[in-house]
């Protein structure tokens, strides 16, 4: 049957070519012929990656409709919603490329794992509300036949944000907006605060906002594993490799006002295997940049920001890795079971961990104190000088504590306005972003995944309108500034 098919394909070519070239003895282009025959075989058996000469099971497939760069919670969430919202089951082939299968440096698993609705932008509040509903019903969303249900270890203890005199008016405005969006947040005066949480020192606190429902913290590793398991059951392919190159084509167009624009389209993604020079070119239709702290590098590979500064072509993706520490300490006289995640106006925050009076916490450094993001080494002096004094001032019981351990992780920090970047790039037309969430990516991942999937499938946002988070704002200078960053 093969031979007959081959004869049918080659037949018309032969007759059309004429005998002259055949007898003329042109140079034998063996490589070209072999690749041509291979392509013909592939066209007869669609989708089959046939390579009889060597084992390619570790390589990603040769083509995939969507390639998601980055296998953290955002990338997996985009993959999940793509497969869930596709019009026909199995219509879209998705490949998730993750450089590190142990997730040793991934922001998702190193996160403190909190979820809150207390933001200053209504879009962020809506994203968190949907994500809370997703996490609450996670066993309906991510159910896999014959697998045990997921236990996210969610602590519904809420967030308590404290504000000083200067920040009180802004906090009141924010809480009003959060309530309008549907978040259950209450404002407390210092007296009420003292009565409810007697272990807090309310000196310097003018106002506090306390999240009553849908706020707390959970286990991000469990969410990641749940997503992976569900995606594998939905037919998403996972590949361990590093994206090193994009092959794209450009087309020069003119806008309505006569301006010359160069539109780029990515055709292939080169995925390099670990500890080897071997790479696989994956032909794709869409690339999703969900590489977290390294999204800036991926965007540069795709040609984002390579152009004269001040133009759209020259606007880089302003996402860079920022190192953040988290310290775990033990304090036997510390706040009890009712303690929420408390965030001081100075930037220090802490929460309980487990039943044994252990606490997790840290402080975001100022711009001058930013540690070097080259490695994930922990600086304990930072705790001694910056974190501990602030915590001890706010919770006097923390004057006697003992640090047990610490770790460091990256924020995919958006230096422009500390909010996420979603949606397509205006010039590299088939690259979509889902990154830059600067420390609140984990809690918004389910909703952002859905928004990006809707953008990819329908062309516009359907459920939550994230137009303030599109890439264009970096060029136009429209900041969607998020003030409540921890």
């Amino acid at each position, binding site marked *: 049957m093969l031979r007959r098919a081959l004869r049918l394909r080659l037949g018309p070519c032969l007759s059309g070519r004429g005998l002259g070239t055949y007898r003329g003895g042109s140079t034998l282009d063996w490589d070209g012929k072999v690749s041509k025959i291979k392509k013909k075989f592939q066209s007869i058996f669609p989708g089959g990656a046939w390579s009889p000469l060597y084992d390619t099971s570790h390589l990603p497939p040769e083509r995939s409709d969507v390639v998601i760069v980055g296998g953290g919670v955002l990338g997996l969430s985009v993959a999940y919603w793509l497969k869930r919202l596709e019009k026909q089951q199995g219509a879209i082939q998705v490949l998730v490329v993750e450089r590190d299968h142990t997730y040793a440096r991934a922001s998702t698993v190193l996160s403190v794992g909190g979820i809150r609705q207390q933001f200053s932008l209504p879009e962020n509040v809506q994203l968190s509300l949907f994500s809370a509903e997703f996490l609450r019903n996670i066993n309906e969303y991510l159910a896999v036949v014959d697998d045990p249900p997921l236990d996210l270890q969610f602590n*519904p*203890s809420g967030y308590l944000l404290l504000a000083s005199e200067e920040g009180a008016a802004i906090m009141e405005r924010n809480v009003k907006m959060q309530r309008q969006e549907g978040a259950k947040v209450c404002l407390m005066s210092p007296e009420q605060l003292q009565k409810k949480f007697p272990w807090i020192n309310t000196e310097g606190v003018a106002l506090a906002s306390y999240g009553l429902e849908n706020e707390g913290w959970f286990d991000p590793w469990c969410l990641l594993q749940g997503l992976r398991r569900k995606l594998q059951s939905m037919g998403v392919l996972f590949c361990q490799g590093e994206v090193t190159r994009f092959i794209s084509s450009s087309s020069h167009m003119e806008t309505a006002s006569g301006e010359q624009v160069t539109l780029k389209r990515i055709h292939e993604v080169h995925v390099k295997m670990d500890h080897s020079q071997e790479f696989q070119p994956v032909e794709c239709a869409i690339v999703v940049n969900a590489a977290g702290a390294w999204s800036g590098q991926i965007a540069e590979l795709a040609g984002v920001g390579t152009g004269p500064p001040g133009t759209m072509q020259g606007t880089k993706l302003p996402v860079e890795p920022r190192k953040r520490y988290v310290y775990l300490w033990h304090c036997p006289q510390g706040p009890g079971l009712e303690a929420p995640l408390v965030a001081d106006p100075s930037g220090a925050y802490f929460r309980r961990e487990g*039943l044994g009076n252990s606490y997790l916490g840290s402080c975001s450094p100022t711009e001058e104190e930013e540690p070097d993001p080259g490695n994930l080494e922990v600086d304990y002096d930072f705790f001694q000088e910056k974190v501990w004094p602030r915590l001890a001032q706010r919770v006097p019981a923390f004057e006697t504590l003992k640090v047990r351990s610490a770790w460091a992780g990256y924020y995919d920090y958006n230096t422009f306005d500390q909010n996420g970047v979603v949606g397509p790039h205006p010039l590299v037309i088939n690259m979509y972003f889902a990154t830059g969430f600067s420390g609140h990516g984990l809690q918004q991942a389910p909703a952002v995944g859905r928004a990006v999937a809707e953008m990819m499938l329908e062309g516009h946002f359907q459920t939550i309108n994230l137009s303030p988070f599109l890439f264009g704002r970096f060029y136009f200078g429209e900041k969607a500034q998020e003030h409540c960053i921890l």
Partner: protein
Amino acid sequence: MAAPRASLRLVAPVWNRGTSGIRGLSKAVDPEGSQRKGRTLLQFLTDRFYDVEAVREYLLQKQVLKVQKKNRFRDREWMRANEQGLSSLEFRKLQEVPVEAVDASGCAINYQGLDNLLALKELQSLSLRRCPHMDDWCLGRLYHLADSLQELSLASCPRISERGLACLHHLQNLRRLDISDLPAVSNPGLTQILVEEMLPHCEVLGADWAQGLKVGPEEQSPDAAGSPIPA
């Protein structure tokens, strides 16, 4: 046309006592017979029409919340729903009287279903024993009842863990709390101590704090609640 018949099935006992003014009730001469015939016709229609099925599911969902639920109104004894799922006409007379206690033990109440209970602003006693769908997220909603709730029982709920119990600190008027036999709580004795610290005015029934401790070889007493000797 099947939809009115479905609702008729639920209110049939009440309407039969009154007049039979509606045409469909002409079969109500023999209430048992009409119910039997009505049921098979309904099942026949449910198998064939999506909207009939949807209406039946909706009504069943409403019924599920009412099944086996006992309510106590102020100054009255417990009122229990009868087999058809509706209480007697007395319910109508008591619409203005606030509900004081609800016993929803074993009831399949979930996060959305709690809306109904949280609307009862003067509820003093709530029993949610053995509810299979009560989990930590649901406990996070109970702060609505903080002003009035004095007694709460969460015994034997399979999904409640110590993380959900942390949200009970809003209920400052609570006087009796039962958290015994919670299989998902990792350390019942320690949890009991922490909950007692969290709610100083409340009597917490549950695991004895000595439960996790091993009895030494010389202590032969079978009573686990005796003086604890750490191993």
